[in-house]
């Protein structure tokens, strides 16, 4: 299917794609990386029904990633042959799964953002608008899934309440990055942040949990993913993801 050599990879990330589709790379990376993380749940979910639910979300995201990356170049070249520093995803999506509450907190923060972001994008005259119009329906369901579970874990048992709060707290400092400017993405970021905060606050409150205090980004821990600065677990994730593909240069699968 693809013939390529490893050396072409870094250029793929930077070789100016049409500026109007420039946002496809960061958005595609978000979807790809989160899909991979959710795929790690296969065989480990807390209940069988949830195996099916998490896989559905992962498959939606992978589908989005493939379309987006294909706008930039060869999807496999981009996914498998870029180094860590060339990925443009937010740090939130690369965070390890942790327990189920941690995963749900990540889903709540990110799917709420994705829902609002795709919503704006779908209504814009961006070349990504048609894609966003399809994706917004998918992520609406992801957002609902995260919300339902946040409510049940927050307002479930003492243990689940504590775990859910811990997940929300731990990931809070990665949420500021969601509202940073993205090249090629002309959004009303202020409105995005307001809506996001209102929606997340409402869900957290209804779940009898507390909106985390403290900064939404750290010194240079968060807010840098779009620039190619990632967290340590991401390198390991990529090593696992890319190893086989890179072991057989030029091979088709």
């Amino acid at each position, binding site marked *: 299917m693809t013939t390529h050599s490893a050396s072409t990879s870094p250029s793929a990330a930077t070789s100016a794609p049409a500026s109007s589709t420039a946002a496809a790379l960061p958005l595609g990376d978000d979807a790809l990386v989160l899909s991979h993380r959710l795929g790690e749940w296969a065989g480990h*979910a807390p209940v069988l029904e949830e195996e*099916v639910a998490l896989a559905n979300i992962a498959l939606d995201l992978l589908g989005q990633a493939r379309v987006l990356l294909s706008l930039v170049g060869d999807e496999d070249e981009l996914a498998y042959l870029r180094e860590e520093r060339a990925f443009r995803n937010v740090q939130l999506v690369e965070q390890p799964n942790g327990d189920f509450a941690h995963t749900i907190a990540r889903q709540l923060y990110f799917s709420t953002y994705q829902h609002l972001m795709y919503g704006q994008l779908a209504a814009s005259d961006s070349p990504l608008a048609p894609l966003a119009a399809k994706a917004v329906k998918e992520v609406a369901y992801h957002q609902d899934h995260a919300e339902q579970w946040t409510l049940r874990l927050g307002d479930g048992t003492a243990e689940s309440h504590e775990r859910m709060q811990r997940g929300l707290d731990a990931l809070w400092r990665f949420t500021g990055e969601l509202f940073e400017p993205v090249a090629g993405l002309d959004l009303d970021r202020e409105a995005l942040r307001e809506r996001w905060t209102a929606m997340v606050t409402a869900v957290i409150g209804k779940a009898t949990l507390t909106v985390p205090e403290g900064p939404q980004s750290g010194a240079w821990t968060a807010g840098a993913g779009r620039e190619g600065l990632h967290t340590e677990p991401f390198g390991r994730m990529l090593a696992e993801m890319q190893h086989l593909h890179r072991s057989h240069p030029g091979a088709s699968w």
Partner: protein
Amino acid sequence: MATAHRPVSTVDTARAPGTARTSDREGTAGSMETAAPRDTAAARGTAATADTADATAADRAADAKAADQAADAATLQAAFNAAVAADERIEPRDWMPDAYRSTLVRQIAQHAHSEIIGMQPEANWITRAPSLRRKAILMAKVQDEAGHGLYLYSAAETLGASRDDLLDKLHSGRQKYSSIFNYPTLTWADVGAIGWLVDGAAITNQVPLCRCSYGPYARAMVRVCKEESFHQRQGYELLLALSRGTEAQHAMAQDAVDRWWWPSLMMFGPPDAESSHSEQSMTWKIKRHSNDELRQRFVDICVPQAESLGLTLPDPDLKWNEERGQHDFGAIDWSEFWSVLKGNGPCNEQRMTQRRRAHEEGAWVREAAAAHAARHSERERATGDSERAIENSERAAEDSEREEATA
């Protein structure tokens, strides 16, 4: 209640009035396929699984209704035999011999366990799939296996078993899963070999089960077989890409076929002469073909497929027998089969450990959702809003219709 509620009252299968006689008290407790009579029949379901048979037999003896039933036993048995002989389906609330029920529970549970344990060897490669296309396919396939496990547990539940109980039996080693999943997936090509050979063998086994005498099992198998047709094809396609790929890829594919071929043949179970349950299951039409028949069918199907793949099946004795119109094949090493079955396969311990861990680590999640549901239904009752949940689901159903109307 449900029957008075608009959406449900239009459901053709669910409109019978509750004219339950005393002898059928459990009927009101639920009785669609899965809603097998809960209280008495839950006992009967477990009773049927040999280990507690004595205890419940005593319970039942104490039950006056059971005495009536005993008087009718011969008539019931005759009706059951006639239905099976006429190729009619037995449905959950029909009378059936205890041994039929227990055989089915054991077989369906083992089948369900195999689906969910079977997720592991393939999920092992989701994070390393070498292209995004393959990654999507594999994720969808492993997801299907969870789905198939769910269909099958539901079928077992129509017999009075509970999923929790069946999972307990799996986790404590009292029920088995297919031994094939105790082999490791060492390379990417193993994902292809599993699809082609393991799923191929499973389909050969399962297609006749679509005509099994027990309705819910047969229906679950129809759905499973329909969905599984892509599983085998993706495996074959994956191997074909490797076989026609680089030298290293071709070698990887051949190595995987070499390792999976014999275990796949063992999936059909011991030779007919040594198979303990076969004969009775054939009479009951739970099983339609013998182990050896199905194995032969599978070999005959695979030989030309392997040729097209450009791969060799690792059996020097494999050759066409003109006289029989079938392939002859070499002797299977049954000592390996029994050894793996007894727990000495390469991955028995690993598979069970992961399954138990997922279940244990998920306990707090399941408890939380149950606690949330209990608290909220209490609240609803307190506010006299007992039907809110149903209304919500109705509203959601309508929403989805509206959405689809505008789409």
